[in-house]
């Protein structure tokens, strides 16, 4: 390429290049002008992680209530898949930190709100609580979970119960197991042995792909050690790896794991529920969002499947509460507030919860709209002796501990090493010491 070209040839080259550039710029601007985005419309953008069958139907029903009320507002749903919001949690943090918070996003009540509240990313909505009269219809424990430093920062949309043992009723009937005998771990394991002897090798179905499914089961076993122990746990007061209740709970879980499907690490929570639906397993411990899965599989509560408190947790109600809030500096503040009004309204909650499998956070819910499982849950909620906030679902303990807890439970499921897990839990609590700012009073 070293030979020099005649000057005129060089010039015509340059002209061609210029022509190409000019044409490209003109077409580019033209195309942009024609296809440019329309001026900001009247929209509401919400983020949530409700993507599985029953969950999606539920949020659609809530959005439908909003659209009926505000027909000129277009709702943009941005679902981020991943059970219990484990994927969305990280997405949301980066969005909020970069000032791109949507008009409202799903957030668990309790400690999961703390980083956002501490950093001033959420606006207090005390006025809204007052004007909508929520204080008189939402029970005190639930109110406390969205209240930080005396201010309300979120509106609960539902109450899920964490400590539910789901069972395939046909299987229990077939092998003559009375659900009433499942009230204690001894009774429960006796039933498992019976099923095992009858050829159901893994009577308990468990998921574990996201690890939290394992921690969820362990958390309910912790609750079965009594409310005093659980309160110490969520208040960061367990400092002895030889704590007899801690060790006992881990031993119970160790035994529990003997009956669990070995491929749990490849399954999501809903795949584990599906095992119970198909009758491959008899039991699964999962929050009552599982009811939606039974519902879409056309199973009838009390006939095909049943639910009861996890053994040893009778009279206790493990709280998993989803909320929406009003982030600071959102693009459509008015629609954000409108959304919260719908979320907290009787109509909105009674549209969402019957499908979602949860119960309304309001005490004035219209019972007739709910299915038989939820009606029994509403009764249990009313009569609950103790309520406790879930750790795994973001409420009970600081996130620093909660993230570790998933790993510890998952590791324990593979090693079944009680003393190592007890030590890991105590270490994780002490590492998160400075984060325990809320003092739970559960009894």
């Amino acid at each position, binding site marked *: 390429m070293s030979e020099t070209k005649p000057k005129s040839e060089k010039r015509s080259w340059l002209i061609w290049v210029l022509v190409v550039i000019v044409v490209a710029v003109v077409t580019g601007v033209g195309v942009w002008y024609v296809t440019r985005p329309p001026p900001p419309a009247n929209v509401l953008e919400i983020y949530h992680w409700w993507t599985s069958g029953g969950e999606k139907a539920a949020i659609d029903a809530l959005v439908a209530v909003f659209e009926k009320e505000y027909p000129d507002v277009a709702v943009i749903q941005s679902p981020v898949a991943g059970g219990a919001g*484990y994927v969305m*949690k*990280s997405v949301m*943090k*980066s969005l*909020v*930190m970069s000032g791109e918070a949507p008009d409202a996003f799903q957030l668990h009540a309790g400690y999961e709100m*703390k*980083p*956002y509240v*501490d*950093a*001033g*990313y959420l606006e207090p909505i005390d006025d809204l609580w007052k004007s909508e009269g929520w204080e008189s219809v939402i029970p005190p424990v639930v109110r406390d979970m969205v209240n930080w430093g005396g201010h309300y920062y979120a509106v609960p949309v539902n109450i899920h119960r964490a400590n539910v043992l789901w069972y395939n009723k046909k299987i229990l009937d077939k092998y003559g197991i009375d659900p009433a005998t499942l009230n204690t771990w001894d009774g429960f394991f006796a039933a498992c042995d019976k099923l095992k002897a009858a050829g159901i090798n893994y009577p308990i179905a468990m998921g*574990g*792909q*996201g*690890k939290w499914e394992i921690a969820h089961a362990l958390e309910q076993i912790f609750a079965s050690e009594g409310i005093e122990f659980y309160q110490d746990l969520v208040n960061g007061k367990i400092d002895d790896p030889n704590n007899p209740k801690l060790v006992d709970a881990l031993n119970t879980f160790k035994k529990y794991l003997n009956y669990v499907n*070995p*491929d*749990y*690490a*490849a399954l999501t929570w809903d795949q584990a529920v599906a095992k119970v639906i198909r009758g491959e397993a008899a039991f699964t411990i999962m929050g009552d969002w599982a009811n939606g899965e039974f519902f879409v599989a056309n199973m009838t509560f009390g006939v095909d499947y049943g639910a009861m408190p996890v053994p040893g947790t009778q009279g206790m109600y493990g709280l998993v509460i989803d909320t929406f809030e009003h982030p600071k500096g959102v693009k459509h503040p008015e629609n954000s507030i409108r959304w919260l009004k719908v979320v907290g309204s009787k109509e909105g909650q009674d549209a969402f919860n019957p499908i979602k499998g949860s119960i309304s956070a309001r005490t004035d819910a219209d019972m007739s709209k709910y299915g038989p499982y939820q009606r029994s849950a509403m009764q249990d909620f009313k009569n609950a002796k103790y309520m406790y906030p879930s750790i795994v679902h973001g409420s009970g303990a600081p*996130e*620093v501990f*909660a*993230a*570790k807890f998933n*790993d510890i439970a*998952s*590791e*324990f*499921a*593979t*090693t079944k090493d009680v003393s*190592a897990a007890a030590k*890991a839990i105590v*270490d994780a609590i002490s*590492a998160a010491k*400075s*984060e325990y700012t809320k003092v739970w009073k559960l009894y």
Partner: protein
Amino acid sequence: MRLSKDNVLTLFILSSSIVLVGYFIYVFIGWNVLISFSDWVGLTPRYNFVGFKQYIDLSNDPVFWSSLTNNLLLVLLFVPGSLILGLFLAILLDVVGTRGEGVFRTIFLLPFSLSFVITATLWSWMYDPSLGVLNTILNSFGLSFLKSGWITDPKVALYCVILALIWQFSGYTALIFSAGIKSIPETQIMAAKVDGASGFEIYTRIVLPQLKSWVLASFVILMVFALKAFDFIYVLTNGGPGYSTYVLGLMMFIYTFFATHFSYGAAIATILFVTVMLIVIPYVLRVRHR
């Protein structure tokens, strides 16, 4: 450097890149190190100096040791695995010659052109112990004693990950080696043939010794990947079962964004950075001295 007219112009043209790279890469590396000495938890930066607290906590954290071990296993198995398989494929390509080279090269490179998220999902289906194709095939050939929990068995999960990664990367290393083989002058091969060298001898005596710098380049790329591996493992196993497939990159992500423990995540990032530098710096020095 004398500031001639040319140099001034060069500096002027490069200045925007220098500023951007300097700020977004080097300043942030420094910032990350700074954070790792703080106790920042939550979404607002907090710079209370706590010395080596995060590093000490890390040294007491079994997840960290498990992650580090797994990263080392990746280095020890995945890197040579991809190199050897890549070399083998490159030689095959060379032997096939121009007839099928284009087709085979595309086939070999295909896995690498797919996103990790996609390949990890595909592998997770194949490895599924109850429904996956692997166990199904083993079953139908009467080899059910070879069936395994694959990614659900903590003893073999990491090896499953490594195998899948070798599959994805070996086509890429094959491409590098194949370019290397092509750069060897034809005359040398001809001369060897005239001297009566066998095909095997040509590869071991002439081709392989001249691939040294290509091996080194792929080695560094694979090493750095083995240390910063994240997306593939995040999708395939999420670090489980237990801690069995945790790697530092994954641990950093989970403890930064799920636990909002930025100082802890920053400490892991710093350790990762130092480890990568330990590999890259000798390589850069070697290349510069040549």
